[in-house]
Structures are given as C-alpha cells and as structure tokens.
C-alpha cells in the first residue's frame, strides 16, 4: 500500500508538470479562442534560448533575457501570423499554429543546435525521503510554481481589467472589437503570458529530460490533460494534470505488466475519452449550448 501511495505521489508530481504545459494551451484558448498547437514548440524554444543565454549570462539575467525574448516572440507572432488571420475559421488558425510550431522548432534548433543539452538551474532532481516517500526537489519546485501561476492567472482572468477584456476576445473577436477592445494588444498579452508559462515548463522539463527536440513532444502528454480538464479552464488544467499523472503512473505500475508495458503513452487519452463520453466538455470546460 505504501508503494501504491508512493507511485501515486510520484505521478501527482509529474502530473503537475503536465499541467504547466496544459496551462499554456488553456490560456491561449481561453483568451483568444485559438487552439495553439505550437505550445510544445514554444516550450522547446524557450528552453533552448535559456540554455543559449546561460552560456554567457548568470542565471537570473538569463531568465530575464529569455522572458524578453518570449515577449518579443509574442509580438512577432501577433504581427506576422495572427493579425493577417483575424476572423478566420478556428481551423485555419489551428493549422497556422502547427506551421508556427515547425517554424519555431526550426529556428530554435538552427540557432542553438540540435544536439541534446543539459540544463542546470542549481536544483537537484535527486529524490529525498519524506516519511518514507521519495520526493524530488525539482518536483516540489514545479508544484510550487504551478500553484503560484494558477493563483495568479485565476486572479488575472477573474478580477483584472485586462483579463476580462481577454475573456471577451475569446468569446467573439468582432464583438470584442466593436466594444473597443484592442485585439492586437490583447493577443500580444495572451501570447506573452503563454510564452512565460512555456518558459516555466521549459525550465522544469529541460532540467529533467535535457533540452532537445523531444522536449516539444511533451505537448502530446499535455493534450489529454487539457481536454480532460476542459480546453478553456485553468483550474481544469491543474486538476486534470494531477488526475492524469497519478492514474497513468498507477496504471503503468499495476496494469502495465499484464499487457506488455508502455501503456503510459496512451492511457491518459483513454481516461480522457472515458470522461468525455459522460462530460463532453471536460470536467470544468464551459458547456456550449447549441440551438438550431
């Protein structure tokens, strides 16, 4: 039983890290109605940039530099990609973000190289024992950061003036324009925030897995988390991350041996499908009522 709890807690902590990536998706969807498939590549890009900056800057300055880079990137994306595509069907925007993903992946690797790199931010990933349970310092940091991001973002979207404007934009681009919300500015803010979230995710995952191409694939682990929680829900991303992390770890350890292992790759999707069958908009997603 202790073993099961240990597995579950390990899973919960990994789940928090999934949440970090899912949060980026949810943010952009919530505030601009765009399903941003490039989130994984943004994570990779920010991690690559950080590794690149660390070669000649101290840690805090490097993080600052990458933050500025991500904000610059958000502005570039708004001007070059989103502005020409205002009021296009969501599917077109979705495809554009896939293209953007290729672009970022290519640019990042062209500048900083394709070889796997280590990322050392001075926090060890070696687990220590707390009352007999193995917990890693990095996981704890991840949990604290996600918690902080979560509280900050919820406050931002519910209470702040800008946050409300962003929610209006996600409802209807044209309606938001007509009540005087500057669409371009709203998008820059959204993408900058999600760039920051990508940076946090990139730092955490980069420290754990090393910085290389495969880092962009963690987006695929975040997607079931996203739909399980509801595409436009920030609390959903966090809670679903915990659920997915714990359950996939438990499934891998206790069910995996019977079917040949490796079920971690698709178990979250099965779980999400199962839940979506009963709640088609995820656990916390906004339900869209269709009328004819």
């Amino acid at each position, binding site marked *: 039983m202790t073993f099961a709890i240990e597995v579950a807690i390990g899973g919960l902590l990994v789940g928090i890290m999934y949440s970090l990536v899912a949060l980026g998706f949810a943010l952009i969807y919530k505030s601009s109605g765009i399903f941003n498939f490039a989130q994984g590549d943004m994570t990779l890009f920010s991690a690559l940039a950080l590794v690149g900056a660390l070669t000649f800057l101290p840690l805090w300055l490097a993080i600052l530099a990458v933050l500025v880079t991500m904000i610059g990137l958000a502005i570039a994306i708004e001007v070059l990609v989103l502005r020409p595509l205002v009021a296009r069907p969501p*599917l077109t925007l979705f*495809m554009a973000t896939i293209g953007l993903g290729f672009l970022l992946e*290519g640019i990042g690797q*062209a500048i900083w190289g394709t070889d796997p790199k280590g990322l050392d931010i001075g926090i060890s990933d070696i687990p220590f024992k707390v009352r007999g349970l193995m917990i890693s310092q990095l996981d704890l940091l991840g949990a604290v950061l996600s918690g902080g991001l979560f509280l900050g973002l919820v406050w931002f979207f519910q209470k702040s003036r800008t946050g409300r404007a962003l929610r209006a934009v996600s409802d209807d681009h044209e309606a938001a324009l007509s009540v005087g919300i500057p669409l371009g500015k709203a998008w820059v803010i959204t993408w900058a925030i999600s760039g920051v979230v990508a940076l946090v995710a990139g730092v955490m995952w980069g420290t754990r897995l090393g910085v290389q191409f495969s880092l962009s694939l963690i987006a695929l682990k975040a997607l079931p988390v996203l739909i399980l929680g509801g595409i436009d829900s920030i609390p959903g991303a966090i809670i679903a991350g915990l659920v997915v992390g714990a359950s996939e770890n438990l499934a891998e350890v206790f069910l995996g041996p019977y079917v040949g292992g490796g079920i971690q790759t698709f178990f979250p999707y099965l779980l999400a499908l199962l839940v979506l069958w009963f709640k088609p908009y*995820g656990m916390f997603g906004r339900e869209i009522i269709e009328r004819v």
Partner: protein
Amino acid sequence: MIYRECGVFKATYQEDMAIFPIPLDRWGVMVILSMAFFVIPFLASDYWLSSILIPFLVYSLAALGLNFLTGYAGQLSIGHAAFMAVGAYTSLILYGRYEVPLFLSLLGGGLVAAAVGAVFGIPSLRIKGFYLAVSTLAAQFIIEWGLTHWKWVSGGVFGTVDTPPMKIFGWPIDTPAKKYYLVLCFVVGLTLFGKNLVRGQVGRAWMAIRDMDVAAEIIGISLFRNKLLAFAVSSFYAGVAGGLITFTYYGAANIEAFNLMLSFHLLGMIIIGGMGSVLGSFFGGGFITLLPIFINQFARSLGAALRSDLLACIELIIFGGLIIFFLIVEPYGLARLWQTLKDKLRLWPFPY
C-alpha cells in the same frame, strides 16, 4: 472566353446529373488522365516515378480520405496516419502470410482500417470540435502501441515487416512504371468513387452535419450512421493508401513511417489544398509531398557545405513559414485559387 459555361443544354436527366456537366471540364479531365496513363510513365525517369509521383498520388489519396471526414463531415481528425498503418499491416499480412491476391489484400487492408476507424469514430457522437480532435490523437497512440506490442502483427518491438515481391496473376510488379500504374489505377478508381459519393445523398448528409449537426439531426439525418460512415470511408481510403505506400514506396511496413508527423502533414494537405474539395486534396497532396523535396534540392544547390542538421532545420523553417504564408494568402486553400482562376478565365481576354 477560355472557360465557357454557356451553351450547355441539359436535355436529359443523365446530362443533368453528369459528373462534369461542362464540356471543357470533361475534356480537361480526359487530357489529364490520358497524360497520367500514357505519357508520364514514358517520359518520367525512374526517380521521378518512384520517389515523387508515387508518394504524391498515394498521399493525395490519403488526404482525400481525410477530406471526407474533416472537409465534408466536419470531424477533425489528427490521428489519421494510424489508420494508414492499420491498412499497411493488414494488407501485408493478407498478401504475405495468407497469399490473398494483391488487389484483394489492399482492399482488405482498407476494410480493416475502415472497421478500426469506425470504432475510433464512436466518440464523435458525443464530443465535438477540438475536444474531438484531441480524442482522435488517441487513435494514433493506441494503434501505434497495439501494432508494436501485438507480436502476431509485427513480430517484435521494431514493428517492421518486409514486403514480399508483388505479383498480379503471376505477373511481377517490379519496375517503378508498373508500380506507378498500380497506384494510379487505385487512385483514379477511388477518386471517381469518392467524387460520386460526395455529390450523392451521403455527401450531402455529411455536409449538413458539418454545417450544424443538431440541425441535421432534426431534418432526419442519422448522426450515428453518417458520422461513423464518414470515419469508416475516410479510414478505408487511409488504409488503402497505407497499403499502397508500403508496397510501392517503402518496401517494408514500419510504424515509424506512420507517425504523428504524417497525421499533421495529412491535415496540412487538406487545409492548404482546400477543405471539402476533391481537387483540393490533390493540390494539397502535391504541395506537401513535393515541397520538402524541392526545398531539399534547392538548399543543396545553394550551399553544399551546410551541415545536414542545419539543412533539416532550414527545411522546417521554410515548411512552417510557407504553411503560414499560404493560410494568410489563400485561407480557403489552393482549390479556391483554382476557382478564382476559372472565374477570371470566363471573361479573359475581354474586359466583359
């Protein structure tokens, strides 16, 4: 003046329901088909046939299948390469192990893929939009896992099965030209079938579902039947395409050939080519298949000294950039560009 729609008098029901009512279209299709059958195989080199034309045709076929599902029936699928994998392995096993004739094993691969596709289509009855899109990723991961872990299928973790030499009635299909004909026959036949499917009752039901499924249900279209049918037909095309590409291009079924990247490429094909357009699937298939080849050639001719990993990055950059560029310039796909061209040619060279 060039593209004339006048002077078409439909006097019988047959003429009214003709697949190409305008004579110019009819002639155009005839010319293209006869070029494809009688001219290209003799002019094109083996390299062109086997590494450019065959992938172009096969991926266009797969894109056509995805277009039924996404462009016509409105169900976004980003796990479509997995159905190609199912078709590939099934046709190989049918042909290689059970010695079913080649044509039948390719169709069999399609049918099994259709069955699998219909199963993965079940969530579409409850889930919509991007939720459904992510759910279809489940197909990709589950099928990949299944094919590599089910020893009977692939015989091991690597999941590679070599193709046996192809024969039809004892006649070997070994040269690129013969393979090209095999692919072409399938593509032409299935495209004709598909074109008729989408302009008939089934296609109209799909389009009604795409536009608004609640409304479609109210006017008496069975969502259950038509959505699952869309998944099945679409996966059938994917399955046949998967079988074809394995037999004629890769020479071995390998799960890596049908990864998520291919699914994205297929989606890119129909969005760039044109959603809900049979012709668009071919435009998109051509664009996405040929683009990396040309970028590669171009980059190679520019700087032979470039490192190969940098070259791969440049390919990614150009590919991603062009996708965005095309979406901005022509958001409704290349098929719409074709439509615009036809509208222009209606009057050209006269001002009115």
